[in-house]
């Protein structure tokens, strides 16, 4: 029961919006299904993104609006995008994963060692993909077990993994850049089916899969429940520890996929891959409207967040501006987007309170607000 409640509230208080077909409740916002849908909930982001595109078109004209450039933006968004999808799950589930950048580095290095490449040359390049994903998953499993069963704070556990994984990557790679020699690997991931680069396809598939997993499966509902109120989730019969482990494994798997994409993009595996990727991913997730304390968030918001940052650096480069000014703009956008987001959310809450709806469980019941529950 609890699970069901927090699901609906976590999904933004309009469960109807995510379903195709007419929403059960047609009152409310004038835009109907659209405005109360994922796009509506991310209105601040859509506005920011549109503004950014307008700035791009005004300042760079055809160079910005060309197909080539759009493809470039999407391709650059793909790697951080895939990692951000995994990060969205972890953060909605009430955790944080600081180790993603290091896991990308470790996976990319492990998948491009001479031994792995030799094995891949004898069999198939899929070995390299498998290695990267497996390394990511195992590292994620370690994160999850340490956090869920070792009772370590996620921030500390993944901080430790950040240091350890990058160190291990440096040891394996001997701090050298490892070149991908497998031509069939490069040509597969370098291809552009239907004119869209493979990396963008992968990003799209991961994003859609993430959306389905989050919004259409028990796994997704449990994620919201665990992040919203772990104790309530436990009482509702959810195996919170096991679920937490699964979330970090999921994040690790996305890191493995991202590592493969980075290997294709740069033709190398390196212990310097994914430097500060964790911050980019967290920034994208947060401006995407996901609550850092867990219990609420959307995949659509995250994707928009990633696109905003990637487009930003593209527009700045097209105008030949320095990376320092870019960093300033990035900071401003983070604050502006979150403020705008809160405005929109507050406006909606007022409208709703007129209809005398109770506050959402995620907001109304702070974590740890379940006294009297004896520890197992």
């Amino acid at each position: 029961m609890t699970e069901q409640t927090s699901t609906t509230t976590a999904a933004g208080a309009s469960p109807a919006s995510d379903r195709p077909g007419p929403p059960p409740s047609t009152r409310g916002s004038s835009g109907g299904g659209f405005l109360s849908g994922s796009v509506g909930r991310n209105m601040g982001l859509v506005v920011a993104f549109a503004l950014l595109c307008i700035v791009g078109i005004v300042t760079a004209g055809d160079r910005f609006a060309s197909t080539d450039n759009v493809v470039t933006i999407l391709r650059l968004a793909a790697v951080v995008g895939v990692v951000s999808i995994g990060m969205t799950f972890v953060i909605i589930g009430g955790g944080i994963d600081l180790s993603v950048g290091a896991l990308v580095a470790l996976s990319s290095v492990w998948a491009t060692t001479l031994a792995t490449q030799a094995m891949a040359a004898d069999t198939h390049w899929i070995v390299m993909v498998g290695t990267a994903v497996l390394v990511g998953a195992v590292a994620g499993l370690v994160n999850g077990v340490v956090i869920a069963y070792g009772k370590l704070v996620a921030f500390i556990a993944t901080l430790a993994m950040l240091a350890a994984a990058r160190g291990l990557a440096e040891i394996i790679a001997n701090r050298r850049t490892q070149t991908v020699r497998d031509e069939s690997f490069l040509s597969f991931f370098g291809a552009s089916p239907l004119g869209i680069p493979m990396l963008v396809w992968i990003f799209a598939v991961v994003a859609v899969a993430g959306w389905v997993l989050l919004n259409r499966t028990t796994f997704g509902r449990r994620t919201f429940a665990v992040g919203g109120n772990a104790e309530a989730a436990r009482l509702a019969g959810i195996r919170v520890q096991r679920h937490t482990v699964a979330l970090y494994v999921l994040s690790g798997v996305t890191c493995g996929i991202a590592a493969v994409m980075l290997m294709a993009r740069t033709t190398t595996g390196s212990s310097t891959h994914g430097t500060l990727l964790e911050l980019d991913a967290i920034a994208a997730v947060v401006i995407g409207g996901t609550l850092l304390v867990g219990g609420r968030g959307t995949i659509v918001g995250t994707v928009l967040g990633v696109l905003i940052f990637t487009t930003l650096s593209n527009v700045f480069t097209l105008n030949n501006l320095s990376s320092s000014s870019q960093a300033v703009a990035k900071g401003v956008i983070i604050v502006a987007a979150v403020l705008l987001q809160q405005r929109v959310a507050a406006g909606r809450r007022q409208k709703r309170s007129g209809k005398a709806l109770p506050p959402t469980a995620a907001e109304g019941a702070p974590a740890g607000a379940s006294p009297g529950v004896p520890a197992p």
Partner: protein
Amino acid sequence: MSATRQRRLLTTAVALVGAGALVAGCTGNTPEASSSGGGGNNAASSNDDTGDTVTIGFSAPAADHGWMAQITEAARAEAEGYDDVELIVAEGTNDVSAQISQVETFINDGVDAIVLLPFDGAAMTPIALEAMQAGIPVINVDREFDDPDAARVTILGDNYGMGVSAGQYVCSQLEDTPDAVVAEVAGIDSLPLTQERSQGFSDALADCGLDVDNRVAAEFTVESGEEVTANLLQAAPQIDALWNHDDDQGIGVLAAIDNAGRDEFFMVGGAGSANAMRDIQAGDSVLQATVIYPASQAADGVRLARLVAQGKALSDLIDVEVPRQITLSAPVVTADNVDQYIDSAFES
């Protein structure tokens, strides 16, 4: 209840071990014939005769890219070539306060000389001064201190000269193209060395009436090189020449150029990695030349530290003391002279 739990834990453990074993097979990474620069003592003079044993402290930033890895490796190899040198290598770090405490430890240990490649020259100046005041000669490598008194010898690569060399090469190739589009992929923009390289580049270009039309800054990593170059190529639909400050990030720069299918321009690299030189040798990419930034300077620093600590001088100079400052040259490597440099180049 607890039985299930135990079983579950066991399953997890088995899965962990199994997965570990599966991937462990893939960590083998035997490099093919690593060429370690330094180590060879080719200067023949009485200076190479074994003298008093000296202890030299060595501290450098984290070896997170090929050039920096080679710096430490070459210094180590150089020290091993001498029976009378004991080199204490501190763990490479990009944390200024950690590097300061490394130098403090060297001072407390009473080493005979310190070879220091600071992560940040200005930040390391006070502690270097302290070492000098304690009577320990400091050999400052690559990134210069604020205060000349903080070092007994300063040995520097020529960052400004690198930019000048690259700019002059671009000029020589684009003499007949007055409105040529020149692009630049810089390294970490906040470092003085990047600013010096860019300054030298634009100064040299100005001499032949060119300027930098598009400039982006990467972070000396492959990934950042690919990322900024992908955007750069969109910003400049037509380019005549591109200078990339660093061959480590150059792998990413070349990948981005490949991905975009561009080949209407030529590219000049920087630092002089072995794979950049192999590309130049092969002549099948846009990379036509690279400018050397010697990775042997810390090894030279170790040699000079030994001489200073033993009270010797440079044998090819008449002066009886080791000079205060040495600036290394930044030659351009092209297909014509690549054979001369490729053996001492670093692997990125």
